[in-house]
Each structure stands twice: as structure tokens, then as C-alpha cells.
């Protein structure tokens, strides 16, 4: 599913410090970038990296740092809000729209000094499809013609991948597909075979990125030094990068205030504190995440098989109050499934109003004038348990009694995917590709694959199919907006919010790009630079 890629990407993007790069001009100031220094960043999604082999990792945490060492065929461009060619200088499309011929750049080198060729791209994609590798990137490669045979162990090579010369190759898809959205993710990085086949590749990665791997202290830090043969002239600016691996927001806060890290992500509480500080508040960057926080409703379990009950829940809760009081405004209220950074987001659409009377009326129409009891499965977090505690009184007011069950993420996921849960709180990846995001309500998509609410509506499936095969972009976007509005109306979830990622940036850290900020823009550490006052210019 494209969702994997997108959600991963979003997660990485949303809070990755590279986001600063694409940020406000006021941060970049008028100075010319200065070379040198060591970037001190944080990989904030976990206590360890799972793998340094980008083909073998599922974790957002790994992809935060992977961008420093690896590159894919495409990359996300924040200014145009779409994937753009990265390792190739051009691509041509066959008349049937299924074959894409790429001309690779002639100046792309691996960290071992060897020039990248078409063989490397083909080998990398074939490796991802190899079942022995168990690569999560396989879903991005599988649409290529013949890839499913490799995945099934019936073939060793992908018939849809053809080398034309050392710098030219073609990709043929089995059916209509968008390679840009499939091949920009870190899990499709291009790797050098001779290095991957060495036994220590998983601990000593070699890639095409702006920094050469230096050292990984498992569970603590990972370092890289500037790659002088990086294909983007003059980049990276910094001599080295050092990621501290942690998910402790309190420690990140202290380290940021002490000037030990150049940027950090903020929790809800820290957002309030930083916002109230005259100095710190000047350098806060708010990024709408490509996630939609919601309460999933199992549409196969009564009473949620009744659309009126689902709509009633959406009318019953004052989401503005929850966002302002509980989440300290570190969220944007949800008006549908697609978030503001999605190209199909409809900024004119209104969210469900807080209307308890209407909620009661809908419940009465559905035959639940005396209400009912519902169990909500949550994780022990602000966005899980905290939100359910906050919405319980609202639901009680319309007659719905909430029974909250707290479990860890794995247990919630299992219950959701098996269909045993009645309702659950979740933050789902919903971008950047709106078709993939909306497929989570496609009748033909299984629960484990994405359709966790088991929503079934042939009319919606048809709308989505039509949008997916429409090549005229404005028409396609319009169709997707309608599909999103349809889902909002059918309410298979309680639409809560789109999380607001908050980045606090030190005054000495600068980026280069200005313009639109989308969380997927980020991750580019090569554009970051430190001014003369940066502590990172004087220490390792």
C-alpha cells in the first residue's frame, strides 16, 4: 500500500529537524550560507534505530537519519508539494502511460567512490522485491511488471525493469501507476550491491546521501561526515551531522535550552511554555502533519453500522474545546479525512458542528433514544486516553456511555485489524497522496491493509476509481474532494484533528529554502548551515 510509504514519510517529515530547511525566510536571514560545523540534531521517535539498511526498516526513527546517508530516485519537493526527480535528470513516458524511461545523472557517487549506474537502480529494486529481504518497501516495487513474481519467489529478476545503457533504464508498470509517489520513499533508496553484500552493511551503511556514515552507538547516537563527492554541488554545508537518538521530550527540552541541539520537537506542554517565552516563541515553526487523528468506528458492529449513530457522535463532541484545552491548540480541527497539506484538501468545507441536540435527534432516529454503551480502545497517551477522558462527558450528555480500555499500541492494532474492537483512537497517515489515503475506506481493501473501519460503500469505491484513473489533475482533485466530503458525511470515524508538529529552532541554525512548508519537504540535512555563533562550529 502506498499508505505505508506516505505515512512513514509523513512521520519522518513531520518532526524531522530537517524541516527547518524548508522553513521561513526569517530564519534563513540574509546571510550567505557558511560551510563547516557539526549539526546536532535529534531523531525523536524512539530509543533506538532498528536498522541502518534502508530496505529493511519499518521505523520512522530510522528514516529520519537515513536521509543523511541515502537517496532515492525521487525526492519530495516542498515548494511544489510533490515528488520530483532526484537521481535522474529526466524521465519520459510511453504513450500508454505504463513505461517510464529514466536518464540518470552522470555525477552521482556512492560513498565508496563508485559512480551509480542503472544496474544499481535495477539491483536495488530487485532486492526490495526479494522475499528473503522482507523489505517493507516491497509494496512500492510490486506494481512494477513482473515484480510480484519475484515477491512470490517465482522469478529472480523483475521483467518490468530494463537497462538501456549505464545511465538509462526503464520501468514498466503492470497497470497505471505513479512512480513518483512510489519511489521517493527512503525504503526505495538506491544502494551499492558490493557494499550491501558485505556482512557488516547493516551496521556500516554506504549510500548516496550528503553524509558518509562514521559511527553508530546503538541506542544513543549516529554520526556522519560530509561526503565530498555528493552530487549536489556545494552541499552539504555542515562538516558533519550528529543525531542523538531519544524519544524523551523532557530531555530534548533541556538539551535544546542548554544549546546542545540545534532544533527539537515539542510536546503539547512544551508548546505552551515556549509560546509564552519572548525569545523561544520567535523560533517556533508550526507544521500541519499529514496525519488525521480520529476515533475509528467499527461499521460492522452495531450500532456503528448505522450512519446516523456515527454522525451523531460527530455532532455530540465539542472538538474545539478538546483541542484548545487538552491539546493546548497543538492541532488543527479535522474537517474530513484529508489534511490541509493534501492537494485535495478542501479549505472551504466546514467541520461537523458541535450540536448535541442534533446528535440526540439522530440517535433517536436510529432507534437509540435511550443511548447505548460503547467501548473505546486507546493507548495511554494524551491523544489516546486523554482525549477519550475529555470526550466522555460529551457523549454521556447525548446518552452514550463510554467504557475506556487502555492497552499498548500493538494490542490496539491487533484488535483493530481483527475487527474485534468497537471503537479506537488513532492517528492515521493521510498524505501526501489523497487516493492512497482515501483507499482506507475502499470496500475492497481489508482491515489489516488499511480499511480498519470496514467501511463498505460501492458508490464511494466508484468515485475513488474514477479519480484514480483520471489524468487531468484539476478534475482529479475535484473528484477527490468530493470523495472526501462523501466520507465526512458517512462518518466512519469521529473526525478529530490534524496534529500540528512544532519545531523549535536555535537562532544559529539556518536553512536555504523558503516557500511552502509541507512536512514531507524536509529531511534534507544537506541544506542546513550553522552561523558563526553556533556551538556546533566549535565542538564535535
Amino acid at each position, binding site marked *: 500500500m502506498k499508505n505505508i510509504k506516505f505515512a512513514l514519510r509523513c512521520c519522518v517529515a513531520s518532526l524531522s529537524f530537517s524541516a527547518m530547511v524548508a522553513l521561513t525566510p526569517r530564519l534563513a536571514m540574509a546571510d550567505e550560507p557558511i560551510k563547516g560545523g557539526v549539526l546536532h540534531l535529534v531523531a525523536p521517535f524512539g530509543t533506538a534505530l532498528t536498522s541502518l539498511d534502508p530496505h529493511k526498516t519499518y521505523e520512522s526513527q530510522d528514516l529520519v537519519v537515513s536521509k543523511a546517508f541515502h537517496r532515492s530516485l525521487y525526492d519530495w519537493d516542498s515548494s511544489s508539494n510533490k515528488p520530483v526527480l532526484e537521481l535522474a535528470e529526466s524521465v519520459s513516458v510511453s504513450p500508454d502511460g505504463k513505461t517510464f524511461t529514466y536518464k540518470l545523472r552522470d555525477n552521482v557517487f556512492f560513498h565508496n567512490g563508485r559512480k551509480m549506474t542503472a544496474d544499481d537502480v535495477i539491483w536495488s529494486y530487485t532486492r526490495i522485491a526479494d522475499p528473503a529481504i522482507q523489505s517493507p518497501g516491497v509494496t512500492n516495487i510490486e506494481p512494477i511488471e513482473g515484480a510480484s513474481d519475484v515477491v512470490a519467489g517465482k522469478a529472480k529478476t523483475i521483467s518490468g525493469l530494463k537497462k538501456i545503457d549505464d545511465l538509462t533504464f526503464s520501468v514498466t508498470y503492470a497497470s497505471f501507476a505513479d512512480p513518483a509517489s512510489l519511489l521517493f520513499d527512503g525504503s526505495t533508496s538506491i544502494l551499492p550491491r558490493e557494499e550491501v553484500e558485505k556482512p557488516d552493511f547493516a551496521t556500516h551503511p554506504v549510500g548516496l546521501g550528503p553524509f558518509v556514515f562514521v559511527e553508530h552507538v546503538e*541506542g544513543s547516537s549516529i554520526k556522519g561526515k560530509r561526503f565530498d563527492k555528493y552530487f549536489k554541488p556545494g552541499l552539504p554545508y555542515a562538516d558533519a551531522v550528529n543525531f542523538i537518538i531519544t524519544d524523551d521530550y523532557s530531555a530534548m527540552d533541556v538539551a535544546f535550552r542548554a544549546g546542545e541541539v540545534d532544533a527539537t520537537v515539542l510536546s503539547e506542554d512544551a508548546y505552551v511554555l515556549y509560546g509564552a517565552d519572548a525569545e523561544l516563541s520567535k523560533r517556533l515553526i508550526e507544521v500541519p502533519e499529514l496525519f488525521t487523528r480520529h476515533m475509528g468506528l467499527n461499521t460492522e458492529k452495531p450500532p456503528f453500522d448505522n450512519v446516523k449513530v456515527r454522525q451523531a457522535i460527530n455532532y455530540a463532541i465539542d472538538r474545539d474545546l478538546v483541542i484548545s484545552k487538552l491539546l493546548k491548540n497543538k492541532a488543527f480541527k479535522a474537517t474530513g479525512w484529508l489534511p490541509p497539506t493534501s492537494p485535495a484538501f478542501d479549505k472551504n468545507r466546514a467541520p461537523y458542528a458541535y450540536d448535541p441536540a442534533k446528535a440526540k435527534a439522530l440517535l433517536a432516529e436510529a432507534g437509540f433514544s435511550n443511548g447505548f454503551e460503547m467501548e473505546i480502545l486507546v493507548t495511554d497517551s494524551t491523544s489516546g486516553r486523554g482525549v477519550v477522558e475529555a470526550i466522555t462527558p460529551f457523549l454521556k450528555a447525548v446518552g452514550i456511555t463510554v467504557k475506556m480500555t487502555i492497552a499498548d*499500541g500493538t494490542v490496539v492494532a*491487533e484488535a483493530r485489524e481483527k475487527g474485534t474492537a468497537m471503537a479506537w483512537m488513532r492517528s492515521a497517515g493521510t498524505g501526501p497522496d489523497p487516493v492512497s489515503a482515501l483507499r482506507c475506506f475502499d470496500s475492497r481493501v481489508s482491515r489489516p491493509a488499511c480499511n480498519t473501519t470496514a467501511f463498505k460503500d460501492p458508490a464511494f469505491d466508484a468515485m475513488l476509481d474514477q479519480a484514480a484513473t483520471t489524468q487531468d489533475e484539476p478534475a482529479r482533485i475535484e473528484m477527490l474532494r468530493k470523495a472526501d466530503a462523501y466520507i465526512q458525511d458517512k462518518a466512519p470515524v469521529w473526525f478529530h484533528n490534524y496534529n500540528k508538529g512544532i519545531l523549535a529552532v536555535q537562532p544559529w541554525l539556518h536553512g536555504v529554502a523558503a516557500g511552502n512548508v509541507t512536512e514531507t519537504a524536509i529531511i534534507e540535512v544537506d541544506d542546513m548551515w550553522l552561523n558563526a555563533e553556533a556551538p556546533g562550529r566549535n565542538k564535535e
Partner: protein
Amino acid sequence: MAMLLIRRLMQSAVTLLASILLIFVLFSVIPGSFVNSLGGDKRNIDAEFKARLQTELHIDEPVPQRFVRYMSGLLRGDLGKSFAMRRPVADILTERLPASLRLAVAATAFAMFLGVPLGFLAAARQGSWLDAGTMMLAISGLSIPAFWFGLLAMFLLSLELRWLPTFGYGHGSFVNLVLPAMTLGVAPMALIARTTRAAVLQTMSADYIRTARSKGASEARVVTGHMARNAFVLILTTIGLQFGSMLGGSVIVENLFSWPGIGALLTQSVSQRDIPLVQGCVLLIIAFFLTINTLVDMAYVIIDPRIRFR
């Protein structure tokens, strides 16, 4: 002595075996599996991919079959392969153990070098302000949660005074070690201080101390030659138990300070349901505890030969 050691080792082996069985059964019955942890709270992993992974990792096999597979590997010295990291568990533990040991030794040293003198002082000045202050400190040290103490220490020493780095391993350098060692060592320090005080007070009133004094032995001789040696059996027990439990007790501290030890690894592997890695971590923690306990038992015999005959 040899018999004692053999008896201890046999007891340890039984404990270890029971622990292995318990961990295995527990992780087999609790809900949630590794493949579901991949989806996490935000992502969707392709259903076919999950199914394939489940089969390849033998997750869908019956529990007895998995147990036999695990035990046969264990008997060959093979702890299995981490589901998430795709590397041998033994290799991962070998990489992480030095950091944990370094932290455990430093925290124990901190606890011992501060706790023992404080306990002695408190006992020597029983009923004085020094005694009251020391015991207040000890109770505070035992009561404050490690993460809270760590944050306060971070705030003071890293942010306000800028003496120490907030977090990170820094190749185990002294400046990086101080904060986590203090945080991990503060509760054992308090316990050791209290134990030392109690042990010394008990010894001070013993007949042989009065005898030593009446024979005209100097106070230094009484304290070091008679009092300390006898009190030390109890103190050593406390220190040994505290040191033995540090590998498992460092989970919060290692996470807070980005310390690359076994504790942080255990947290991560539990949340990922990486069962081989969890089993490896727990096995190591238990083995470490049992080893230290056995060594402490051996040390008793050396310090106080009477124990041998009990």
C-alpha cells in the same frame, strides 16, 4: 566453599530455567505481536507482507513448537535473531552490555562511596543533626522517582550550571556518565546509607566492641578492625543486591539519558514485541543478578568464615 559454589550454581540454573519458561509463556499469551507493532499507531503495513513475515519468523507456529525451537537454539548457545533488527540477539547484547556495565559500576560506586560513609557518620553521631539530615537524605533518595531526580539533575547540572551534557553516551566518557550514574545510584545510595547505619549501630553495641575498647584498642582500630568488618556483611549484601539489580533497574535512566544499554534495549524490544530480543535481555539481566548474588555469597565466606559452618 566448593560445595557452596556448586549448590549456588545449581540453584541459579533452576532459577534461570524457570525464568526462561515464564518469559516464554508470558510473551506467548499476551496480546499483540511483532507484525502488528510494525503498523504502530500511524501506519498501515501491507497485509500480505505481514502474513509472509509472520510465517518466516515462525510467529504463527504453536507455542510448544516455538519453545522447543528456542530451547534447542539456546542449548547450542544461539539466542536467536531479533525480529526487528534482523541480527543475532547475542551480537546485539554484546554491543549493549559494556554500556550497561559501565553505568552499573559507576552508579554502584557512587552509591557505595557516598552511602557507606554517610551511614557510618550517621551511626557515629546517632541522634545528632547529622544523623537526622543523613537519614532525611536517605529517605528522600529512596522516595524520589529516578526519572524525576534525573530531570532535576539535568536541569541543574546541564541547563543552569552547564557543567555536564544533558544526554548521550559520548563513548562512555566521564562527563556523560555522571548524570545517569547519579540518577541510577541515588536510591541504592540511600538504601546503603540506611543499612550501614543500622549495621554499625548494631555492631557498636556488641560485646566484642566493648571488649576491644576495654583492652585499650584505639578508636580507629575498633572501627576498622572490629566494627567495619562485622558490619560489612550486611552492607555487602545490600551493595551486591543493588548492583545485581542495576541492569534491569536502569530502564528508565537509560531511556532518559539516551544511554545505549540493556535497559533501553529492553524497553524498545518489549514495545515492538521483539520476543527473541526480550528473551535475550531478560535472560542476561537474570543471569547477571544470579552471578552477582553467587559472588556475594562467596564473599561472605571470605569476610566471615563462620558463615561457612552455618
